[in-house]
């Protein structure tokens, strides 16, 4: 009798499992009207696309990032960080281009990016994971955009062609009395760099004239930036000025300054700005 009851109970549980099944009907996918994106808070999100020229799936990820950036109309800034195994330059052959940077390498190591393509969205965990795959970039970005802006970042650049001197001024204003210390990190990115890139396309395994966009060239004020304040005062505007000489190898008109404010302890980014080195 006892065994029969156990068997019956087990059977009921088995039936319960049978109901755990969401069989879907077409259409599975509907085009998203990106104009619907609610623009209530002017928060701008930074997507760091960790990539490499020997990573076959990275061109698709770059398209994903670019499409998102385009559709979100200035509310998403993409920075391509070439770091790790797939970004390493070869000594000979097709992949000698070196887009790696000390800053990118340190971030790659700190955030334990073990495979490409992968990304960080405002350096904030999405669904419990800090490192976000391209499939989840749209959702992770949307999750960040849904939050209110906590600071504003205004960048103004003065570039002198003759000396290649670039004076960057970043004004940061906090919109709330946030707790904790905050840092400002100022980077240079460059567009339109052309060199070979591996792809996952069997007919074109290598694109020899691949155009790399948003490539991180380095940080102006260190890997983790500079502390803005240890105690946030919303009534203040925090002004920082940096003067750098642009590397001879970089094309000034293709370069941008990307500045972001982050929590010094958690590294979470709360606001980002981007301005071209030479005003468009």
């Amino acid at each position: 009798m006892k065994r029969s009851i156990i068997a019956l109970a087990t059977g009921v549980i088995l039936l319960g499992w049978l109901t755990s099944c969401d069989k879907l009907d077409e259409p599975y996918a509907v085009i998203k009207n990106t104009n619907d994106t609610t623009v209530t808070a002017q928060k701008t999100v930074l997507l760091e696309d960790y990539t490499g020229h020997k990573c076959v799936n990275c061109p698709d990820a770059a398209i994903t990032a670019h499409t998102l950036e385009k559709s979100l109309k200035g509310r998403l800034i993409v920075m391509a960080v070439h770091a790790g195994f797939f970004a390493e330059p070869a000594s000979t052959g097709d992949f000698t281009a070196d887009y790696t940077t000390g800053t990118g390498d340190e971030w790659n190591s700190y955030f334990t990016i073990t495979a490409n393509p992968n990304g960080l969205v405002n350096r904030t965990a999405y669904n419990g994971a800090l490192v976000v795959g391209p499939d989840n970039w749209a959702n992770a970005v949307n999750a960040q955009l849904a939050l209110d802006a906590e600071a504003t970042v205004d960048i103004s650049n003065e570039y002198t062609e003759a000396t290649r001197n670039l004076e960057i001024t970043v004004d940061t204003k906090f919109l709330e009395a946030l707790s904790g210390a905050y840092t400002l990190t100022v980077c240079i990115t460059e567009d339109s760099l052309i060199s070979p890139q591996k792809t996952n396309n069997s007919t074109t395994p290598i694109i020899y004239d691949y155009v790399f966009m948003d490539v991180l060239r380095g940080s102006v004020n260190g890997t983790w930036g500079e502390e803005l304040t240890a105690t946030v005062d919303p009534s203040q505007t925090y002004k920082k000025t940096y003067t750098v000489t642009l590397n001879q190898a970089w094309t000034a008109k293709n370069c941008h300054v990307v500045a972001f404010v982050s929590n010094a302890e958690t590294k979470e980014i709360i606001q980002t700005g981007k301005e071209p080195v030479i005003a468009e």
Partner: protein
Amino acid sequence: MKRFIRTAAVAVTLLWASGATAQNILDNTGISGSMQMDGAYYLTDKKMGITDSTLDGKTLRMNGFTEINYNWKNFTAGMRVEAYLPPLLGYDADYQGVGVPYWFVNYKNDIIDVTAGNFYEQFGNGMTLRAYQEWTLGYDNSLKGLRVKVTPFKGVTLKGVWGVQRYYWNAFENNNRGIVKGADADFYLNDMFTALNDSKVKIGLGGSIVSKYQAGKTLDYVIGEDIYTLTLPENVANYGGRINLNIGGFNLYGEYAHKINDPSAMNDYIYKPGEGCYLNLAYSKKGFGLSAQMKRIDNMSYKSNRSITNNMLNINYLPSITKEHTYYLASMYPYATQPNGEFGVAGQLTYSIKKNTALGGKTGLNFIVNYSQVNGLDRKAINDTTAIGLSGTDGYKCGFFDISKDLYYREFSIEATKKFSKNWKGIFTYLNQAYNRDVVEGHSNEYGIVYSNIGIADITWRINNNYALRGELQGLWSLKAHENHEANTGDWAAALVELTVNPHWFFSVSDQWNYGNEDEDMQLHYYNVNMGYVYNSTRIAVAYGRQREGIICVGGVCRYVPASTGLTLTVTSTF
């Protein structure tokens, strides 16, 4: 004073009583366990391209675990402490840390077996569910939750599991991965029905259903140049049935599994149901064995997080039918199961030629002949306007026997074992392999198929009861890469000499030489010196040398191993 004496008497009585209870508990207890420590000191090696910057200051690395199980009457409790400080090269950096990822409490009697905490489990051959650990791969998908096994009648076993999978050290929170539920029933008819008790035909039947729940009804996903919102199934079921039939020397095992729509990063978010089919027919008698296997896998990746593509969080296991090798060069190009689709067949003949015959000589001769081949599936478009595999659609159509011409892996091997005398024994192996490096390693038309011939001679000389000397000579000759493909590593030679001093010591020296590499700078020697000491169930081994880059596979699940040079220490023990 009286009160003090009374109190003291009670205290002594209680102490005595508790001591007796503890003694009784100890009388019925057992403690068992095991440990392993793999440590490495990595060195720079200019020829292999390993520099200070590659090592990143982490020259000393260690993977280790200790597992302890405590048993008292019907109860067992256990735990495993793991440490990766930092993990050895080739292991996922996300493992870095130390903690207790595995603990359980179990109660078991004749009818019921209940486990709370972490557990490993397998339904059938694993196509619906397999939670297991493979230390050499850095693979652990244990479930944490509850498992109940019930044996209501003789010959009937029912199992139910409910839990979340291990994901490195990450706690389950905020729906960061799915919840796995599963049930399995196993019926051994010969025990269930008295009429079949003594039958020569042995019949086992089984069935299982597994469901995963992962929160998230929609996903914004870029398809082409547009953003789409995909509707997602939060509950995805995977169910199957199996049969095991024994008649005399014959055995037939068949299993089929079906998975409903499961769009994920692994299948590029297509909605086609998945299928897995595995058949094994074997016959054996003394000195002779014959087996044939067939496997078809179609869109059967089943993970508890739809957005990850690495080896973690697999709920199911797709069985491998290709032969696993231990020799250096035979294992250079191992096959990894392709969960998105493959069709494979395999066969093996084992034959012993008797002693005192013309072919067998005085001591006899044993042969193993093995053949396996795996091809891709021939996928067809679902209609004229939808590209094959397009995300957000059913992906493709594919009949059961629609096999593509794309060869993923093929191997023919013949192994002969001959005892020349009481003290001399030899194993001679020839293998012919075709390995689709692009498919197996995830490249995109870069390397093509590596065709190779491999010859191995393995001779053991038992000098006396205490000393044995074993030598291996191996060669791998591979065809040059096709035009438009990057060069493969070319031809290799390998040799090994191993001295065993019973019962405690072993020493070996080996070298793998890539003499046929088209890049002369890479014609390297991968030398290795190894020694070890064994005492009861404890084994200590120290090795110095080079590790070549490659992949290692266990049961079709693989891990990339980067090139390295250094000193390693391995300690294993059971108690």
